[in-house]
């Protein structure tokens, strides 16, 4: 079963243009910063906001095709949605919330309650079935919302920012729960989030959404290996510079940014203009004295933060432009790097990857 989305959706003045596919069995994460259009897409896929043009189809069943006047109402779509604000019905108890989709489809009350009760028990809420949303903790409420979406065994499951409202402790627990539930869910699964860690853990494929456009799709590893946008680079912790690439010499250009200039290779066929430069932190060399190697980019600045990850450290330097360097802990020790220490940073031009903006 595959969900094929190829739409332009509009909400107010904001427009989203997205084309991607999601297969059953491989969770897709729509990943993007706030304001990138994720929620609009969710509303469109759910059927609440008809697209301006394009199509949405689940295998052969066309859900939206404005050109041919096709728009299947949300209540007729085989979907289950967990909303960002959960939107649990405040006047119903947990079990009544979970049973709601069944009751709405005419399932008799005893059977609906039975199934809801079982599902809540499976999610660890057996003894909270009678509680009302206002008496539930964040994590409990999240699970009720999940139960409510799952109970009709929909073909398509949409989770909109499922963890964003939870505190750290609840987040980890609920994330594990969602991962387990998703693993056992046979239909199409789409998660919407702004958190790349969440996306990487819960999804097998990422669709990056920026400013209403899809900028890249792929597995987390593929994106990590070859980010194609500033956002993707930021996500995976790369240095990203945005500026105008001007010719410097044969085969090389100067990327002029607001925060500083860097020498970078001139991509084949590039005509100049706006460009993004990507640089891996591990390609940045730090030293206490002015380096005199072949590196074309040499800058100096104060260390503003050092964060340790395993046996490596990410060092932020307030140079022009600002840089993130990744070095071994041993190097940190050897160089005596601490907040406030002035250090030199250098990297070769050829280590910078230029992408047209």
């Amino acid at each position, binding site marked *: 079963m595959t969900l094929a989305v190829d739409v332009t959706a509009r909400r107010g003045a904001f427009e989203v243009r997205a084309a991607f596919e999601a297969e059953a069995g491989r969770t897709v994460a729509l990943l993007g910063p706030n304001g990138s259009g994720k929620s609009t897409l969710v*509303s469109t896929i*759910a*059927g*609440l906001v008809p697209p301006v043009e394009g199509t949405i189809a689940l295998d052969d069943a066309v859900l939206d095709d404005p050109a041919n006047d096709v728009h299947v*109402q*949300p*209540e007729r*779509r085989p*979907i*289950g*949605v967990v*909303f960002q*604000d*959960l*939107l649990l*019905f*405040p*006047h119903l108890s947990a079990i009544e919330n979970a049973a*709601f*989709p069944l*009751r*709405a*489809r005419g399932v008799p009350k005893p059977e609906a309650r039975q199934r809801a009760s079982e599902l809540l028990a499976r999610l660890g809420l057996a003894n909270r079935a009678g509680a009302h949303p*206002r*008496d539930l*903790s*964040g*994590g409990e*409420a999240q699970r009720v919302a999940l139960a*409510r*979406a799952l109970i*009709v065994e929909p073909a398509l499951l949409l989770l909109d920012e499922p963890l964003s*409202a*939870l*505190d750290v*402790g*609840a987040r980890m627990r609920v994330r594990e729960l969602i991962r387990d539930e998703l693993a056992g869910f046979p239909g199409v699964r789409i998660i919407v989030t702004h958190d790349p860690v969440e996306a990487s853990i819960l999804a097998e494929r990422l669709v990056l959404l920026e400013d209403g456009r899809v900028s890249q799709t792929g597995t987390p590893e593929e994106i990590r290996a070859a980010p194609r946008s500033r956002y993707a680079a930021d996500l995976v912790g790369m240095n990203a510079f945005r500026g105008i690439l001007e010719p410097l010499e044969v085969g090389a250009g100067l990327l002029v940014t607001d925060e500083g200039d860097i020498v970078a290779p001139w991509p084949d066929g590039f005509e100049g203009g706006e460009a993004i430069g990507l640089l891996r932190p591990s390609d940045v060399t730090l030293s206490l004295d002015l380096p005199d190697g072949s590196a074309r980019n040499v800058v100096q600045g104060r260390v503003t933060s050092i964060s340790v990850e395993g046996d490596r450290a990410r060092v932020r330097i307030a140079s022009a432009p600002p840089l993130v360097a990744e070095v071994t802990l041993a190097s940190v020790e050897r160089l005596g790097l601490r907040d406030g220490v002035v250090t030199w940073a250098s990297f070769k031009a050829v280590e910078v990857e230029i992408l047209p903006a």
Partner: protein
Amino acid sequence: MATDSRRSPSTASSPLRRGRIPAGFVVLAALGVALVALPLLGLVLRTPWSRIADVLTSETALAALRLSLIVATTAAAISFVLGFPLAWVLVRSTFPGKTLVRAIVVLPLVMPPVVAGVGLLAAFGRRSGLIGSWLYEWFGIQLTFTTAAAVLAATFVSFPLTVLALEAGLRGLDERLEDAAATLGASRWYVLRRVTVPLLGPQIAAALVLSWARALGEFGATITFAGNLQGRTQTLPLAVFEQLQTDTDAAFAVSMLLIFLAFAVILGLRGRFLR
């Protein structure tokens, strides 16, 4: 809902808050209460409590009571059946002239009741009424001097209260809950029945109570349009008025009855106002 700990229901204001009411406010508030309480107190003291059983079991009082209950309840029901869809349309749709429609609907609130009665005659009178004359000539239906006229008059004056209360309720409703219900498979009718109306419970109760109370107390439009006849159009306020001319004691007694009725309804529904 940002933390994992159980949220506690809202508590009374903190001790720091409680002491902070300005003295001037207390004085003004007390004056406000006095303004309303004094006439009530006067009524209670002037009521001939020894005679009250006799008066209230008299044919006049019983007929007026029965009629008032029927008229007020019917008026509140009609107001609701017509007012709910209207409130919905006013809140959830736009159309040219919406502001005007809203102004017209609220007009009976500020209209002197006798003027409302004259208006009702102009519309529904059998002789010169816009619709009324047509009804009379073609179907022999006359509205004036009937209980239906009393209901019509009461509905006219209580309708705006229903619409305003329901409008406020609908505006405060989170429409996204209805969206969520749709994605969960609920048809529009099911959403209305099981989500919208239950969530509007307190506002619906308020609308019904307000319009019922207003309908109960309606006088000017009733006496002008429906007339005054025991058992047919003489509601409690009309009975009080008539008795005021001849038997003031009885008038006070029936007035107390009206007040008890109103109190009973307001207090009885108090639980619904606070969820």
